[in-house]
């Protein structure tokens, strides 16, 4: 202590603390002022920000990985968060490519214009929304009106639709998910733009597709919906008919492309304006045979490539 005058290391330690604090704060202010110049995304070192739909995220990830092994200069950063997140990011100007499993709403388009962003839509794959249940569930077929009643809470027990006497546990994606919005509009509201019916408040909103899968896999009471690419062999898909008379069609690549499966949709990527440079190259690659091959491998429906 005091009889060890040579302990300079203690000096360094304690003496410079308040000075360090002041320097740090000055640094902070200075740092705030000089940001590195935001380069064009995709150029030397600046990553393309690819954010959005959790339905698309694994596809986007697979694309990014494959593309980057082929083009080592390319830099693509992929994050999920839901279609709403990606679109919000595009509107805020923080995202280069927004993945969306639904189309942008009119309000979002307006908000984008106000921010000086011009969203351009690109269809990058197609998808079926599969209705999934536990493998032990005896129910095989459901009509759209039945699905609407189930998910809005009007039907609450499996016995009402030919199943066992069990309560129905509803699983859904979070409200920021394009899949959620699509299902609400096309299935719960049966495509009626003026309907105002909502999901039952008892619906469990799972953080993502895997959350739904995990619960369906182990809970015989459950029913959920998700992109075809997320259905695993330990789940059972329901064959869906548009109405009580029609044919019950199971979801698959063929039934989507033929139009027979009633709950099918396009998957989108939105950019600010027509894409240029590295972003354009990436999008073209995605829509090429190579990119679409990955789509098929992941269980989505590839576009018909000319």
């Amino acid at each position: 202590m005091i009889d060890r005058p040579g302990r300079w290391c203690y000096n360094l330690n304690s003496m410079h603390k308040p000075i360090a604090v002041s320097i740090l704060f000055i640094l902070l202010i200075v740092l705030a002022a000089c940001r590195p110049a935001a380069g064009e995304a995709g150029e030397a070192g600046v990553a393309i920000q690819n954010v959005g739909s959790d339905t698309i995220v694994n596809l986007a990830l697979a694309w990014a990985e494959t593309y980057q092994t082929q083009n080592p200069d390319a830099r693509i950063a992929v994050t999920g968060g839901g279609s709403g997140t990606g679109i919000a990011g595009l509107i805020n100007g923080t995202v280069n490519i927004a993945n969306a499993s639904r189309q942008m709403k009119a309000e979002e388009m307006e908000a984008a214009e106000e921010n000086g962003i011009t969203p351009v839509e690109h269809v990058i794959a197609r998808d079926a929304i599969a209705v999934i249940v536990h493998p032990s569930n005896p129910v095989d077929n459901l009509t759209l009106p039945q699905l609407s009643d189930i998910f809005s809470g009007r039907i609450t027990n499996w016995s009402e639709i030919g199943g066992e006497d069990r309560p129905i546990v509803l699983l859904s994606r979070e409200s920021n998910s394009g899949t959620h919005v699509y299902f609400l509009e096309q299935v719960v509201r049966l495509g009626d733009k003026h309907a105002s019916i909502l999901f039952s408040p008892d619906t469990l909103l799972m953080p993502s597709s895997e959350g739904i899968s995990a619960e369906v896999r182990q809970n015989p009471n459950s029913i959920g919906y998700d992109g075809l690419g997320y259905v695993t062999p330990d789940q059972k898909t329901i064959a869906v008919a548009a109405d009580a008379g029609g044919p019950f069609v199971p979801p698959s690549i063929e039934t989507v492309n033929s139009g027979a499966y009633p709950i099918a949709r396009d998957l989108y990527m939105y950019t600010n304006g027509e894409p240029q440079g590295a972003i354009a190259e990436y999008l073209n690659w995605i829509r090429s045979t190579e990119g679409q091959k990955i789509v098929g491998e992941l269980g989505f429906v590839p576009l018909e490539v000319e």
Partner: protein
Amino acid sequence: MDDFPAGEAVRTIIVIAMKISRQIRQQLGFALLGITTVIVVLPILLLVGYIVAQGASAISWDFIAAMPRDGMRAGGLWPAIVGTLLLTLGTAVFAVPVGVAVAVYLAEYAQDTLLTRIIRLAIVNLAGVPSVVYGLFGLGLFVIFLQFGASILAGSLTLAIMTLPVIISTAEEALRAVPQSFRIVSLSLGGTKWQTVRRVVLPQALPGVLTGVILGLERAAGETAPILFTVAAFFLPRLPQSIFDQTMALPYHLFVISTQVPGMPVRIQYGTALVLLIFVLSMNIVAAITRSRFRAKRQW
């Protein structure tokens, strides 16, 4: 429901219990307390053991040091580990100087004024703010208002403010634990107050301060909510290059792979949980060692 036999049994037990001697009642009481403690402690042991059992098979050098492949389902955790290390370091850089300075103020310079009471109140409150509210605050101030964007800088600053209360309180305790006699001797030998603090009190309190710092950083390393909106990313093509970059982080990574990636082998999920646990608990061990060395070596 056949409640009655059970009700009768309970009543009988109570009557008997009241007649038993105080000594036996005391033993029973102590046993009850012991059982309660076991109820608290045992599940944790079981749960941690479960993670170890399920996740140990996934641990390998590759798992730790390689980049993730195949949509995170294979390969390693390296970017997440690096990210957590960077964030912990960033938190330390901002929180330690400020925290120790405040602790010095409270222990050595402050009088019992209204201002001091308000400062202490503020510290207790900072400790109580929910982690997701810190995330909101970090988003509002650092990401949006100061325009740092989602970055290591924003994340570190947010985590730093969150960690301040822990560092301040333990550092202050450590400083106060230094006996007054040390200060008196130093002052009587002609040292100024600041010299006394700098050369006498702080060095003596250093191990205690260090313990607090480590415990605080351990908390920061394990948090997810504050980094959700301020820095974390699902997949980045390469390691972060500057403090304005986003980064992956272990807690967020565990959250993502257990809730968002389909077909994620359960083994890898448990393995990631295990790595995070090891990371955090080893800091615990270091802190405990520092604390006991402090007790052994201190000069009073």
